[in-house]
């Protein structure tokens, strides 16, 4: 190699990464600018517009309360991004700390942490989340914590496997020889070397959290009181709009969930590809 390897340049020359980034930025702006771009206040009800079909005034029609569906679809981006990013962050931070400690300490601590990780990998997370969310009641913080606290296991496992090989490297040996503390070595010497994997993993954790939040709301648990895409799809089922063939009600929120998840996943896979040369596609 003649050029120096620059992850950021690689990222911007990767088609998947750029496409993902554009999608995520689009929804971020949509969420922030929702009060400006939506045609109506999403909460304003109008009893005379019960489930009205798409019209010039209401491009996607209205729901049973006469609320404008296009505006609600736009506002839905907020909850998906807030829950996705916060829950993803909770999961990644816990996974990172557990993985660092488990891999570096080894021995009994490693064994205990890894068995807990196995346990969380094996249990059916969605069933767990449904039950806990149903018991805790509807609240944004509850949903974020439930998703985050039950999704950290994959991150912990990947970080641990990286730490296992990193801790044998000479730079760690020399830090030890200089009497550096265990936690000092973990966070100042080993942590910077796992960030590359962490970025890819964070994208996948966020996409998983967005999916889970929508699924929970669809099932009637979680933060059912906020405007969200999962909630709009649920309303479409319960109001009979779905069986009546109302495409404008059902299609947009699903496409939005799909697109946002797809955006994060593309970035995640692209980062994985850039960091793992074996998966990098062959360039002519």
């Amino acid at each position, binding site marked *: 190699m003649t050029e120096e390897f620059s992850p950021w340049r690689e990222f911007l020359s990767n088609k998947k990464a750029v496409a993902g980034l554009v999608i995520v930025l689009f929804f971020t702006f949509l969420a922030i600018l929702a009060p400006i771009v939506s045609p109506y206040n999403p909460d304003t009800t109008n009893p005379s517009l019960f489930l009205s079909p798409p019209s010039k005034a209401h491009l996607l029609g209205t729901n049973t309360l006469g609320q404008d569906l296009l505006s609600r679809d736009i506002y839905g981006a907020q909850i998906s991004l807030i829950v996705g990013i916060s829950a993803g962050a909770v999961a990644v931070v816990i996974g990172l700390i557990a993985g660092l400690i488990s891999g570096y300490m080894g021995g009994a601590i490693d064994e205990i942490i890894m*068995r807990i990780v*196995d*346990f969380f*990998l*094996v*249990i*059916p*997370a*969605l*069933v*767990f989340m*449904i*039950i*806990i969310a*149903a*018991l805790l009641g509807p609240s944004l913080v509850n949903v974020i914590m439930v998703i985050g606290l039950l999704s950290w296991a994959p991150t912990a496992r990947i970080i641990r496997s990286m730490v296992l090989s990193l801790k044998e490297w000479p730079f760690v040996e020399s830090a030890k020889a200089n009497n550096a503390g265990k936690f000092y070595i973990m966070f100042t010497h080993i942590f910077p070397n796992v960030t590359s994997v962490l970025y890819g993993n964070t994208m996948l954790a966020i*996409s998983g959290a967005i*999916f889970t939040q*929508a*699924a929970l709301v*669809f*099932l*009637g*648990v979680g933060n059912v009181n906020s405007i969200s895409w*999962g909630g709009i*799809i649920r309303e*479409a*089922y319960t109001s009979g709009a*779905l*069986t009546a*063939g109302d*495409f404008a009600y*059902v*299609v947009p*929120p*699903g496409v939005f*969930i*799909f697109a946002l*998840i*797809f955006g994060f*996943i*593309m970035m995640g*896979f692209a980062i994985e590809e850039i960091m793992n040369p*074996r*998966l990098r*596609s*062959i*360039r002519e």
Partner: protein
Amino acid sequence: MNPFHKYISRRVIFAVISVIAIISFDFFLFRLMPGNPILLDYRSPALTKTQIETLSKQFGLNLPLWQQYFLFMKNTFEGNFGISIFYHQSVSSIIFPALENSLILLVPATILAIILGILTGKLAAWRRGTSVDSAVTGGSMALYSIPTFWLGGIFILLAIKTKTFPVSGMYTIGEVFSSPVAEFADLLDHLILPLATLTLVLYGQFTIIMRNSLIDVLQEDFINFAKSKGASDSYVLNKHAVPNAELPMISIIAVNLGLTVGGAILTETVFSWPGIGFLIYSAINARDYPVLEAAFVIVAIVIVLANIIADIMYSYLDPRIRYQ
């Protein structure tokens, strides 16, 4: 003890501990809830103090918590999950038929998704870097991103518009079947849409897993060696590469079973398929806690068991574990 037996016994011990942890968690989670279960169950203001006391005694609620815990553990292992608040019959008489219905949907969908995933994953890995690869990988990522409950909804919309397939339940309600064949045909008719939904959402991840593990294998020395011997492309791929790539797939599939079950719950809910997922959904809306408690334990145990089977298969197929 030989290493293979040692490995297996370690996994079995872990599985037993997991099951005990799951049951304990189940017990304490539901005990933390506010409210008295007797009042919740009977919902009658006319209930007298003596009646409440008698019922508490009958259900063992007057015992200290640790005794309740061991009683709960014992009952769970005996398959006694109490009485459903909503159906007013024993939970086990509801839950086991539902489990069977779930498997009728879940098993064919998983097998179909794995077979399709292996086929397309193989294609993408072999044609790596070409437009075929990008199309397969892109398509798989797209399928992986589709919300299950929404895809099901779109199928329902289309099926109603075109009047092709039934969109709800397992059999036509009220139908009397002239023969087992007619009954089976009706079941298949109802199975098509949920099966298609679940297979499609599972299929994407299996393709990506197969592609990536095959790409790893294709860079091993023994592949180059086989090629240099003059073996044909398809021989190298099918006889040398694929068997080695299937190994990691087994363990990844086992680990992802929790996700697969999540997909099944959503699919069942959308199509009112009378399995455990739909039961959980109905139990949440009916606040039927005994059914929820039992469903959680049953699903978790099934997954722990499936993982043990996968572990045994894996270590049996991979001599590196057997003789370590």
